[in-house]
């Protein structure tokens, strides 16, 4: 069954002078229990906005989000907090994600107290338990965020997210602020948690290698839209969309014979306040042809399990 279903999600930010930033513009995907779904794209393509919308930290302009069949978008009050228990988020900067004036026990224990998961006297024990799960020394219980290393802080953030026993964790660039060796450790931790407790992940990253390693399926976002979505192996071996091809060609490869031709895109990502007509990628696309600058390509299944929005596959 689908754990998370996102349908036609849109988030427009209104700027001064009637300008509208279409940060997320009609995103549809779904994620089944136990699955890790990768969401990749350049900075500013709307990945993080999708993360915040899924957790209802932002109100969508339109579209719907279902979690375990329950409508997140319409949920308020008790309904919302009960949904939120199943959904958690880990951010990019673990230092910014921890209240600098709360110690480890309070930070991790807060969720237990707020949601009345355990009685007050058992909070400490449960926190120790959670810390053990993520590999943080229990003796640090009364230390403050600035006293930990980046990797430890991210482990603490994971422990805090696990406190409510979620089914889905949204990892919003959760590895990007960490050293490469620490990235590997945290990724292994997330992998273990997935095997042990059947967690699902919405793994948001601009790091294609991490996404390839971690995800079962991948969606590529460009200017607020998903341009391609398919199984990880398929997508990395046979990308359909020219943008995906360009992204993949930019991944550094260790062996010379694996290096293909680097596709360098012309120009910059257009401002999301001023999205090009037709296919939003057409001004930078090396393979553009007649309909691209006028007709918006449909998002359709080009091959079994592979969806793309590109006129080449129309």
């Amino acid at each position, binding site marked *: 069954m689908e754990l998370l279903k996102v349908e036609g999600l849109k988030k427009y930010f209104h700027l001064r002078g009637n300008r509208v930033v279409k940060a997320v513009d009609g995103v549809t995907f779904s994620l089944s229990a136990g699955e890790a779904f990768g969401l990749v794209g350049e900075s500013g393509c709307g990945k993080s906005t999708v993360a915040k919308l899924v957790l209802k930290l932002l109100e969508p302009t339109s579209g719907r989000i279902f979690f375990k069949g329950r409508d997140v978008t319409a949920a308020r009050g008790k309904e919302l907090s009960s949904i939120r228990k199943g959904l*958690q988020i880990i951010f990019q900067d673990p230092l*910014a994600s921890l209240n600098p004036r709360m110690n480890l026990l309070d930070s991790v224990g807060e969720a237990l107290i707020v949601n009345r998961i355990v009685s007050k006297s058992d909070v400490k024990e449960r926190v120790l338990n959670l810390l053990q799960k993520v590999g943080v020394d229990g003796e640090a219980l009364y*230390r403050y965020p600035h*006293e930990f290393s980046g990797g430890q802080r991210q482990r603490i953030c994971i422990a805090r997210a696990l406190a*409510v026993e979620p089914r889905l964790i949204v990892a919003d660039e959760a590895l990007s602020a960490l050293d490469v060796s620490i990235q590997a450790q945290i990724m292994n931790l997330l992998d273990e948690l997935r095997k042990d407790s059947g967690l699902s992940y919405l793994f948001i990253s601009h790091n294609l290698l991490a996404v390839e390693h971690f995800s079962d399926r991948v969606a590529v976002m460009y200017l607020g839209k998903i341009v391609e979505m398919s199984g990880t192996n398929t997508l990395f071996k046979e990308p359909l969309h020219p943008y995906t091809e360009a992204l993949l060609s930019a991944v550094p490869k260790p062996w010379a014979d694996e290096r293909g031709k680097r596709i360098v895109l012309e120009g910059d990502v257009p401002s999301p306040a001023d999205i090009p007509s037709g296919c939003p990628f057409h001004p930078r696309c090396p393979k553009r042809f007649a309909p691209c600058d006028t007709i918006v390509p449909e998002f359709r299944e080009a091959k079994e399990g592979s969806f793309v929005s590109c006129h080449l596959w129309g």
Partner: protein
Amino acid sequence: MHFLNSINSFWLIYKRHKLAVLGLILVMLFFAAALSAPLISPYDPNDIDSGHILEPPGRGHLLGTDDLGRDVFSRMAYGSRISLEVGFVAVGISTVIGMIFGALAGYYGGWTDRVIMRFVDIMLSIPTFFLILAVIAFIEPSIWNIMIVIGLTSWMGVARLVRAEFLSLKEREFVLAARALGAGDMRIIFRHIMPNSLSPVFVSAVLGVAAAILVESALSFLGIGVQPPTPSWGNILTLGKDNIEIAWWLSVFPGIAILLTVLSYNLVGEGLRDALDPRLRHGRK
């Protein structure tokens, strides 16, 4: 341990600011004087002595006597209590009001924010001192009323500061994470945002004490603040003005006391601002 650590690192930066250290010493001296007023005063501040009217500073009366023969040093010692009381209570009131309004405006935004901030603009557009004069004209000028009026007319700066802190803090990841974990608005405001927004409020409160002391002195000087015979630096100055040609000490000493107090609170405030600035803190280590 964290608390002691942060006090320690705070002091390391604070003490680099020599004038602020001087200010802190002066503030503590005035505090000591106010607390020990009954001990250090050689006379009862309200003892009228017709034999020693307008005596210059000298052996019997350290800072001289006023036109009723009262000892100026004793009156000033007791007057420092009034100044500090007014300063702290007024600032307490304005800080609480400012924090509540600022927090509501910054956290909820939208209409709440617009209504509160326009009200702040209105309050700021009225010159505070004239507003106080107008209010005092209708109510009895007692020390408590003075404190309340000063407090009610000086919270706008705090509200703006707190609102600005809330606006930036409410978007921070740890606040979003708390919300995702199911923390309610009150918990987010009081446990997550408020404790992280206190530094500028603290600085502005210390500066506010100086401002409140100055306003109280001015009101008492004009005769609508602390009423005689209760001594205050301001109303001693009034007597000084009446006798300025024959008794310079009645103007000079309370004047110096007011000057030094206001100056020292301002110095402390500035030292705090530097010491609490996270940018300077991270530079250290």
